[in-house]
């Protein structure tokens, strides 16, 4: 029988877009957490970690309340784009974003904090602005950890079920990601399709995780600070 591959493509697309957004937002937040001192920093960090531990339904509920058609944010979105956010594939992106960004921020913060302070001091001492320091020193030094974190975030975005179900729904051909499609296939007794999709998604995740592991090895010899 023919298997509908739309859910896989949708999942990959959603994960790719959400990982891109997560990199932009997440790196900025992680950098601020690692380098700036501000009040309530650890509370911000805890709030960012919350999605990792809360049940997906709780997150889905929050997002539904925040982005629903009756909410101010939902209205702004509807006014700007002409359609409501909820129950579209864009909502699946939001779901994946909230599911995966915390992981990226956590790993990126740890990576930024692991950079030897003397490199940052040296860059400033040599006249570098904070921007140049970030792009030319901090980011290249942490590039591999960041790539590994992004790969993990991508894999995690692929796997979201609960949040997507709550805010994007389970509309075949529109918002049905692979996790939802597998659930549907099992529920409707379509064992062959379920088996196939499970194997494919497992293989994809395995490849991504092994890539992440390869990124995580240190490119500059055994130590970054040769004494």
């Amino acid at each position, binding site marked *: 029988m023919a298997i509908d591959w739309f859910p896989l493509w949708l999942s990959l697309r959603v994960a790719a877009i959400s990982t891109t957004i997560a990199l932009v937002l997440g790196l900025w937040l992680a950098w601020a957490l690692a380098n700036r001192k501000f009040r309530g920093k650890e509370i911000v960090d805890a709030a960012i970690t919350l999605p990792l531990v809360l049940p997906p339904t709780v997150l889905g509920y929050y997002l539904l309340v925040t982005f629903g058609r009756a909410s101010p944010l939902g209205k702004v979105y509807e006014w700007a784009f002409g359609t409501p956010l909820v129950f579209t594939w864009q909502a699946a992106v939001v779901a994946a974003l909230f599911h995966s960004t915390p992981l990226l921020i956590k790993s990126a913060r740890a990576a930024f904090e692991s950079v*030897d302070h*003397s*490199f940052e*001091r*040296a*860059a*400033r*001492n*040599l*006249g*570098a*602005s904070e921007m140049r320091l970030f792009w*030319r*020193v901090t980011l*290249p*030094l942490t590039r591999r950890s960041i790539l590994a974190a992004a790969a993990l975030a991508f894999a995690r975005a692929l796997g979201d079920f609960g949040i997507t179900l709550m805010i994007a729904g389970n509309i075949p051909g529109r918002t049905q990601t692979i996790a939802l499609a597998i659930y549907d296939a099992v529920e409707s007794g379509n064992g062959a399709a379920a088996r196939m999709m499970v194997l494919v998604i497992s293989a994809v995740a395995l490849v991504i995780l092994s890539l992440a592991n390869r990124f995580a090895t240190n*490119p*500059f*010899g055994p*130590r*970054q*600070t*040769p*004494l």
Partner: protein
Amino acid sequence: MIRARIRKQFPAGRDSAGFTLDVDLQAGSAITVLFGPSGSGKTLALDCIAGFVRPDEGRIMLDDDILFDGATGVHVPARNRRCGYVFQNYALFPHMTLRQNLQFAAERLPRLERHRKVNEMIEKFRLGDVPGRRPHQVSGGQKQRCSIARALIASPRFLLLDEPARGLDAPLREELYSILREVRADFRIPVLLVTHDLDEGFQLGDEMLVVRDGRIVQSGPPRTVIEQPASVEVARLLGLYNLLPVEIKALDPSRNSSRLRYKEFDLTGLYIPGHLIGDKVWMCIRRDEVRAMPREGKPGPNQIPATLENVIDRPGSLRLDFAEDLAAEMPHAQFNGSERAKEWLIEFPPASLRVI
């Protein structure tokens, strides 16, 4: 000329004793050495001057420019201070080649000058064989030369070095010292060097500042500091002396002599101006100025019996450590034949006895 008067306090915490840096220093166009033990605050002082650490109060001036002023809240950020800084671990960017490290530093220069200046530094600091390699692929000496070249490439207005010779073997040290002497001659900028190695301070310093517990306890040319330690504290830090607490028993200016009492022994010294009979003072005697000999019979004039505890073999001489914190240095040849002797006599020539 750098003038820095800075104060920085770290309050005592649950697992730290607290620390206060309170220094007032000047450094002209020569090498000024900040000498002190680990944890004395010398690197912190350097970091304040470089702009990495903001002092609580005080003022840092470079010629007529204010780099920091606590009263008006001026704090020029590190990137605008035009300060060369050689880090303890070099801090060469590991993801860049040596050439790229220099280029990064040269970006402060006008575009047309960058390329020429990078090549000039590669030539001058003998990096011509390795500019395309990364720091972990080159030798310690090459890393060291590259880090100095990087600090100097944009013509800084002053140069700071944090224990640059730490972890280097003797030939590399000598190379570093000759590079620094060249830098002093070529660049004519104030150079501040932090070290806990007295030899290094003595070899390089035109001026030496002795730092202890966050304060400068003595300053002056190294030769003067070593010959006239300002306090028992400094003398202990320098670790070159026998320190004897004595009481002045007699003073005779006409014969330029004095009689001093150390425990139950009488010593004859030179006349001590500015002190009265009965004063208790510290005498400091360089270890290489005393004479030690195995004990035979009674102690003669200016001799003190002492028990040998330890013999330390050094490349040029031997150091004999005696009980009561006394020590003497002597050539190897003089010691031969006395290996068995336990009881010794230490003789303090009158001219070697100097009051602190």
